[in-house]
């Protein structure tokens, strides 16, 4: 701690250079934080996916439907504990395309059994079971449109028009919360019986199935059995773990991991050069001063530690501030709730960011620090005036 004053004084030596370096690190770590926030938003479902849940979809594409009649056959397969179906409804509120959000018809009771991470009060669950036009909405969605239970809302769907070309009418009977931080609460679920009866086309068709297996270790065998059951039919299936399904869904916009690594590698390489150059210049300018410190009795190891500490302080001030701002942006909520419903910087990425901050400080400072450590006192002191 007693050397902190010395380190801090050195940072104040070239204020503009220090500020510019801090600013570049600050921006780099905001970018780091935001990219990982977006990554989390796109893959949140993977982290909260249950190991004992499978998703069964049409073998060709997710947008192709499956017969509702598969439900009963699926439940008969050995290892299947329960199964429900969903259909992508693509609901739009007040005919405004920007008011789009995830909307799916399903069967209320098995749905709530299969997804215990959706927390719905008991009275609201009962209301959903007894109200044919009832719908439950997630907390984020309810907050977005200021909805509350008892509200009556109209939705339109470009995929599933209602008989008579009218808008779909729903009564909000419940608002659910997420049991986990990454649980998506930006959707609306309503009753399949209401949907199937009122839709103008495609009766008896569903989008995909969610299947709970009795033994997660046998999940892949059960998936193979399901696909085998429907092989060589007009509606062949592809069953996979829920996590893999969500990941595949997210990767429709590209391999997020690779994109992130590519962008961050470029950013951090540049920042490494910026900070490394700053430290190299700082050491070069202070050759005599370092010589004087050594003449006073500062050991080579101490000089090395001081230069490294200086580099780490620059990285820490800029980097931690950048991470804090990225975290605050995430905490303020999603800028696009319909596209990125789950929007926050998870603690694990925050910790990785902190490691990166100090890693940057050490890697950028190590060469100048070694240079300072190896400096010969007599040579350093000889520089002034020849």
């Amino acid at each position, binding site marked *: 701690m007693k050397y902190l004053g*010395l380190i801090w*004084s050195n940072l104040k030596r070239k204020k503009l250079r220090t500020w510019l370096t801090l600013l570049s690190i600050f921006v780099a770590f905001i970018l780091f934080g935001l990219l990982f926030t977006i990554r989390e938003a796109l893959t949140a479902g993977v982290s909260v996916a249950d190991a004992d849940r499978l998703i069964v979809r049409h073998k060709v594409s997710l947008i192709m439907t499956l017969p509702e009649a598969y439900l009963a056959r699926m439940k008969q397969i050995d290892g299947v504990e329960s199964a429900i179906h969903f259909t992508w409804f693509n609901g739009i509120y007040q005919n405004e395309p920007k008011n789009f959000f995830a909307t799916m018809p399903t069967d209320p009771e098995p749905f709530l059994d299969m997804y215990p991470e959706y927390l719905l009060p008991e009275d609201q669950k009962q209301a959903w079971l007894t109200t044919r036009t009832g719908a439950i909405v997630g907390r984020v969605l309810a907050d977005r449109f200021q909805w509350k239970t008892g509200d009556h809302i109209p939705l339109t769907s470009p995929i599933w028009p209602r008989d008579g070309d009218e808008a779909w009418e729903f009564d909000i009977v419940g608002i659910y919360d997420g049991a986990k931080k990454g649980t998506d609460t930006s959707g609306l679920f309503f009753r399949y019986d209401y949907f199937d009866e009122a839709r103008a086309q495609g009766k008896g068709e569903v989008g995909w199935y969610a299947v709970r297996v009795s033994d997660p270790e046998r999940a892949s065998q059960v998936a193979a059995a399901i696909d085998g059951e429907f092989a060589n039919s007009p509606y062949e299936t592809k069953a996979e773990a829920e996590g893999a399904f969500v990941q595949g869904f997210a990767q429709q916009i590209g391999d997020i991991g690779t994109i992130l690594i590519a962008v961050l590698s470029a950013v951090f390489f540049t920042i490494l050069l910026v900070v490394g150059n700053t430290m190299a210049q700082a050491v070069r300018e202070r050759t005599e001063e370092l010589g004087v410190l050594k003449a006073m*009795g*500062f*050991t080579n190891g101490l000089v090395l530690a001081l230069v490294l500490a200086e580099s780490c302080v620059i990285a820490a001030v800029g980097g931690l501030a950048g991470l804090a701002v990225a975290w605050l942006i995430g905490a303020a909520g999603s800028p696009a709730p319909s596209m990125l419903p789950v929007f926050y910087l998870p603690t694990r990425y925050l910790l990785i960011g902190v490691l990166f901050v100090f890693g940057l400080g050490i890697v950028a400072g190590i060469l100048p620090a070694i240079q300072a450590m190896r400096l010969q*006192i*007599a040579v350093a002191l000889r520089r*002034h005036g020849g």
Partner: protein
Amino acid sequence: MSTNGEALVRVENVEKSFKRGSEQIHVLSDMNFEVPRGEFVALMGPSGSGKTTLLNLIGGLDRATRGSVKIGEDRIDNMSERQLAAWRARHVGFVFQFYNLMPVMTAARNVELPLLLTHLSKAERRKHVALALDVVGLTHRTGHYPRTLSGGEQQRVGIARAIVTDPTLLLCDEPTGDLDRKSGDEILSLLQALNRDQGKTIVMVTHDPHASARATRTVYLEKGQLLNEKPE
């Protein structure tokens, strides 16, 4: 460092040479030199005569190619880098021609620097700094940065920094070389007082006969060797 030897500084059969390309440059040859405890010695000689090299060897800033350097009872030419650094911190204070103060630190913080290597508390360090600045007559300038001080004042801060750990030996490399006559005289008076009143042993490199006249003894070097008498 013990006090029982007659000579505090004992340089025996020292040679110092270095390579410049394929050429071997001999800076000091067969040097034998002693400084008794409590003496104020001036080293004089033309540029390139080896004065600063000798000073660096005595201060443990450089290593002899051959021979031994003994300060008190410590044979410093045998010490490791780490031991040498610790030895310098305990026993030697350096005063430089161009002061070599940290421009981003106040006078008090500059003087405090050598004390960071001790186990003193912050309060104790402050007390020592105040005392050292008092000795050099700069108690009113403690919060000033070097750029706001005159050359003479900066050198006095440099001297305060050199004596703050109460070293036995003060090594001064042209301490008045960058000062006008008046400021130079003040610095020399201060060094004389430190030698006379506090018993500091001082070895001072200088080109200036006026400065060397303030020392108790003047030693002349030429081409890396000591002369027995003042050259013509």
